[in-house]
């Protein structure tokens, strides 16, 4: 008998969530910079998704002329191992986009969980969590990543994601925590407590949905950092150089001295793609900023 009404309630709740997301999407789209970001990101996602159809050759299909310049058959030339650079760029989009989104998402989930519980709880537990978060915040990320990555030894992408997540969640947790603290003392949260809701429900139904834009922002921030970190680790050869990603392309380019062999495109193109992908997320964040902070919405200032 419960199903008769709980389902519509749930459906309505879902509709509410969708509405929130729709509103966020709308606000993002209304910001011209964010719009550029969305378009850029869409291009990369499409490229990544349809790589098998878009790429003229396989990612590590070799046997072409080594270190060749651009030609009709190989628009961006070939690598020192005789692979097609354009194909690698296209296939490489998959890893960067995937790592960015996966690491960004996981880091954000951790940040949300920790930020929420840290912000909601008072007392000693909160202090301990706060201490750990601060520790992760001040310990320089990249050295830590390098040390951890060399310990985890080439688990490939999974390892890279793990490393990025371990070092990347703290910032978001801190931001979300302070927001949680603000929300926690808001009347509607107290009201929910008076309405008999459990802490769990209050956190997830009252507080969390009100942080959607902040979480979105922290996700894009984390994804940007993840993309750059992935490139850095791969470049240092701490990833799995056999996967084709923009980071490993740069690693191989550096390894076989693309600058010397005149293959500057091999170095230039992946770097630019990384920069553009990261920029697209930063641009989108311009729009997200506007949601959580109306003052940052587009417009003439003075």
């Amino acid at each position, binding site marked *: *008998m*419960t*199903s*008769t*009404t*709980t389902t519509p*309630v749930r459906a*309505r*709740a879902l509709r*509410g969530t969708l509405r*929130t997301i729709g509103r966020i999407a*709308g*606000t993002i789209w*209304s910001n011209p910079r964010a719009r550029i970001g969305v378009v850029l990101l869409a291009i990369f996602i499409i490229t990544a998704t349809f790589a098998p159809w878009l790429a003229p050759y396989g990612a590590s299909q070799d046997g072409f002329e080594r270190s060749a310049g651009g030609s009709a058959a190989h628009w961006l030339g070939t690598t020192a191992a005789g692979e097609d650079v354009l194909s690698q760029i296209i296939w490489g989009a998959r890893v960067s986009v995937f790592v960015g989104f996966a690491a960004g998402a996981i880091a954000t989930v951790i940040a949300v969980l920790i930020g929420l519980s840290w912000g909601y709880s008072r007392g000693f537990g909160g202090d301990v969590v706060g201490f750990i978060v601060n520790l992760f915040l001040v310990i320089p990320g990249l050295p830590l990543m390098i040390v951890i990555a060399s310990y985890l030894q080439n688990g490939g992408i999974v390892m890279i994601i793990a490393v990025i997540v371990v070092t990347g969640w703290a910032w978001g947790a801190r931001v979300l925590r302070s927001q949680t603290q603000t929300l926690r003392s*808001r*009347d*509607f949260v*107290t*009201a*929910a*407590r*008076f*309405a*008999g*809701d459990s802490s769990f429900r209050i956190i997830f*139904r*009252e507080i969390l*949905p*009100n942080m959607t834009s902040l979480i979105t922002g922290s996700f894009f921030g984390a994804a940007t950092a993840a993309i750059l970190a992935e490139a850095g680790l791969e470049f240092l050869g701490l990833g799995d150089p056999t996967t084709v990603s923009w980071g490993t392309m740069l690693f191989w380019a550096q390894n076989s001295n693309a600058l010397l062999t005149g293959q500057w495109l091999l170095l230039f193109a992946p770097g630019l793609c990384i920069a553009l992908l990261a920029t697209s997320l930063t641009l989108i964040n311009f729009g997200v900023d506007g949601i959580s902070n109306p003052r940052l*919405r*587009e*417009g*003439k*200032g*003075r």
Partner: protein
Amino acid sequence: MTTNTTPAQGAEEPILRVENLTVEYRSEGFEPVAAVKNVSFSLRRGEFIGLVGESGSGKSTLGFALTRLAKPPATIVDGKILFHGSDIRTLDDEALRKQRRGGFAMVLQSGMNALNPVRTIRKHFHDIFRAHGHVEAGSFNARASELVRKVELPETVLDRYPGELSGGMRQRVSIALALSLEPELLVFDEPTTALDVLVQHAVMDTIRQLQASEGFTAILISHDLGIVLESTERVLVMHDGVVVEDGPSHQILDDPQAEYTRMLLSHYADPRAEEIHIPGFSTRGRSADAARAERATTSPRSDARAARRADASIVVEGASKVYAPPRRGEQPVVAVDNVSFTLAPGESLALVGQSGSGKSTIARLVTGAEKPSSGLVRFGDSNLASLRRRELRDLRKNVQMVFQDPYAALNPLHTVEYTLLRPILNFTERRGEEARERMLELLETVGLTPAETFAQKLPHQLSGGQRQRVVIARALASDPQVLVADEPVSMLDVSLRAGVLGLLEDLREQWGVSMLYITHDLLSARLVTDRMMVLNAGRVVESGPTADVLRNPSDEYTIRLLDAVPNPARARETR
């Protein structure tokens, strides 16, 4: 064409003339909102006028436009603002900046935040002196001291940071800063709203005196017709961006023209009066009160009420609450000091006192949200201090809270239905369709009909009064014995207050819930409570039947509170 008229041609020339002013908010991706519509009026030198209207009626927007402080997205789409005959819209930045000394100035609505937190007050003054060069470099300090004394502050505030001053002090500082510009026209945007009743009163006195002594032209923006009528000679009433009435204060008081003005006026009354008539409310007076008590015992629901009586008293015995000092080395804060009272079933008790007197703390003690440092708080047989999590939940079922700010008390993302279903599902056995029915019933109880329609709305689709009704419905959902209402109408416009208060009163009569009504608004306390306790610095200074306390206050503090109540009628007496 307007710029060629030179100022000060004669006394008849208005210092400010506004012609057909229209201001819109234009944000990207949103429809433009016209906040000020086709407003025209003019001001003579030395005039002190009031601008009233409820929240959102466009008062601040108008004020900002007049002083050319309107910033995007606010856009002046039409009209002229002639200051000494020249349109200030055409001034370039530097000319405008120069104009700000000896020209027009503004004291902001949120005066508490109008000071730079990282600069001392002295530096604020120096910044202004330096910017305009109208004070000699040698006499900066002397002039600053003089100005702070004018607003009745000690000179020592000059070396303090804003964060170290109280709200009232900060508001005075900003008035002093505005005065330092020696303005001809000074716009006060709700200079006292954020302040406590007593402080409010004092600051208004200062403004009145200053206006009289300095002789500047002033516009006082307020949502409180009482304050405006008490202070000013002429009043502009704004409603929905339009000036609906413009006339001398006494005329507005005696013979209001606009429907809207009449409505506003009708909500004023002296809480001390023998009989009080407020529209939408039964008359309050000696005979009326007796009838009311009588009605209470014979109401159709008296059975239900009788059933409750047995175990539903709240008993507070010698309760104190001491908070740790906010900063090391300071005294601990005694928020509540040895307070005792009983809230009997069906009774309505008012708790009044100025800000910080401990009213909310008592509310928290009574709802079990906090434990007393000493003393006892009981609900029926249970000692609230020893409640466990589960028992606390049971307490919540019986003791519910009506929140002060209906805008903050509703999660903007949840529908009314969700909000109301939560306590029903949590506290009652009702599930599914039954729960939904109860939810609709509650909506009807608080007068939100058709209930089906309201159930689907989100908070932002409701008016303030409707929201407060939802908040009340939620509090009723568990069928509680006691309602604790902490300033339930202070965030509502006058026009909405009466309705909500009426509802609370009805509920008490109909359902027999007892109510702890917390307020600093003595009139509303008079309207909905039987008994009253006056709190000062955590101590009960006076208590007794509401009408008695108000009509014959014995404590000096209570008298001061009563004096501070704004009242248009008093304006008539003094004039």
